[in-house]
């Protein structure tokens, strides 16, 4: 009886969502995540053959709040510099463009990623733990496999679940029903989202990424972080790095919400990266240590 009522509710909710499109999600969500223009420009500038400390510093300096955060992070004990970094150009020279880009992305996403994502049953900082964990995990996978640039794997890992933040308000009070449906049907959570909502959080994130004009491979990784094999035969290595990084983060229990571990994991992904099971265990071992070291950095952000 209870099950009947449950599925009746589910159907009503599904019908209520039937007319909603990805465009609606972006247009009608009042609390949509944003990336400061300066962070996006830095992300693109790093890829330019003409970029240097000065161009990166100048782009960042336009956004005072972001600049202050980046400087605070650069001066944190995490980097162990023996003198204080006073301006952005200096931060870029000392830490490198790619590190400063990642700091800018961390500083730009922390304010909204650390908030609760109620729709997915994620409390304060839980989304952040998961996103940052995936960034660290994807970076380690990239380092071990040498399949793609570590900084790109980091940034993409950080952004992989932005769709959840956007979709949160639309799935509030429905997460349990979606999980139940996925378990009952024996399908991954993202497949259940597609069945019930018409799209999943990966597609919403990818759509948002396109709106932000993120690099194509970053958008692809956001869209396919749960199903990298669907891009075969040409799977960009960053997609596999984020897929495996996300698996590590879920396995370690970092920021698990109502969707838990209800996701698929592809052994093909691991094979494409040329990683063995033993190497994955090694990454997992290193992963927790790296994450803990980064916690020092979190402290700086909280204080900022």
């Amino acid at each position, binding site marked *: 009886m209870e099950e009947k009522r449950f599925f009746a509710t589910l159907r009503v909710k599904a019908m209520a969502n039937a007319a909603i499109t990805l465009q609606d999600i972006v247009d009608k969500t009042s609390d949509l995540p944003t990336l400061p223009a300066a962070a996006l420009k830095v992300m693109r500038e790093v890829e330019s053959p003409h970029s240097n400390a000065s161009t990166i510093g100048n782009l960042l300096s336009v956004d005072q709040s972001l600049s202050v955060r980046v400087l605070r992070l650069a001066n944190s004990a995490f980097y162990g510099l023996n003198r204080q970094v006073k301006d952005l150009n200096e931060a870029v020279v000392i830490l490198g463009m790619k590190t400063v880009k990642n700091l800018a992305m961390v500083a730009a996403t922390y304010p909204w990623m650390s908030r609760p994502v109620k729709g997915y049953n994620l409390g304060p900082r839980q989304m952040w733990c998961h996103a940052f964990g995936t960034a660290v995990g994807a970076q380690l996978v990239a380092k071990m496999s040498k399949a793609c640039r570590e900084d790109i794997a980091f940034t993409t890992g950080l952004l992989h679940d932005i769709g959840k933040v956007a979709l949160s308000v639309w799935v509030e009070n429905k997460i349990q029903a979606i999980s139940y449906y996925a378990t009952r049907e024996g399908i991954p959570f993202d497949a259940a989202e597609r069945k019930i909502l018409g799209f999943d959080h990966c597609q919403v994130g990818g759509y948002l990424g396109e709106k932000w004009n993120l690099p194509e491979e970053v958008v692809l990784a956001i869209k396919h972080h749960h199903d990298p094999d669907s891009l075969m035969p040409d799977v960009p290595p960053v997609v596999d790095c984020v897929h495996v990084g996300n698996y590590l983060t879920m*396995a*370690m229990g*970092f920021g698990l*919400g109502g969707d838990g571990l209800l996701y698929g994991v592809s052994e093909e992904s691991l094979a494409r990266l040329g990683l063995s099971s033993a190497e994955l265990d090694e990454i*997992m071992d290193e992963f927790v240590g790296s994450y803990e070291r980064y916690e020092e950095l979190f402290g700086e952000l909280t204080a900022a």
Partner: protein
Amino acid sequence: MATAQQLMVGMADIKTAKSGATFTCLGLGSCIGLAAFDRESGVAGMIHIMLPEAFKDKPVEKAGKFADTGIVAMLDEMFRLGANPSRLVMAYAGGAQVFKFGNPSSTTLDVGLRNSAAVEKILKAKGFRVLGIDIGGPNGRTVTYEQATGIIKVRTVNGGEKVLCNLKG
């Protein structure tokens, strides 16, 4: 009434107490939270295991990280506090699993299953009585063990809280 000592058992941690502690393993994914109790001395312990076995070619920085080194280390700590190995009772939870595409019989990406199997094997080999097991499935778990009452509770995001067992009998 004395307040219970709150012991957070973080990843790879081993925590033990003579009395009055409440142990918590927060947000277990594929990891295992294993609790042990000596009914006579009252000594209790808990460990948060991440991986089934230590690497043969790497030094072990934190014994609690691995099932093979961690369980032995926790028992050693408990014995130092006065526990007797023949009286120990145990319970464990965690070892959540993800879906697998491709070859479902492969355990390469199933650290939850490998962790559970390793713990089971070690406890069986040592002959310990296991009073409660809650493993597998897709949900993250938080495990709380209250030493004074012996009650072990398991909470999941969607399933709420349930009593797994009582180590006091």
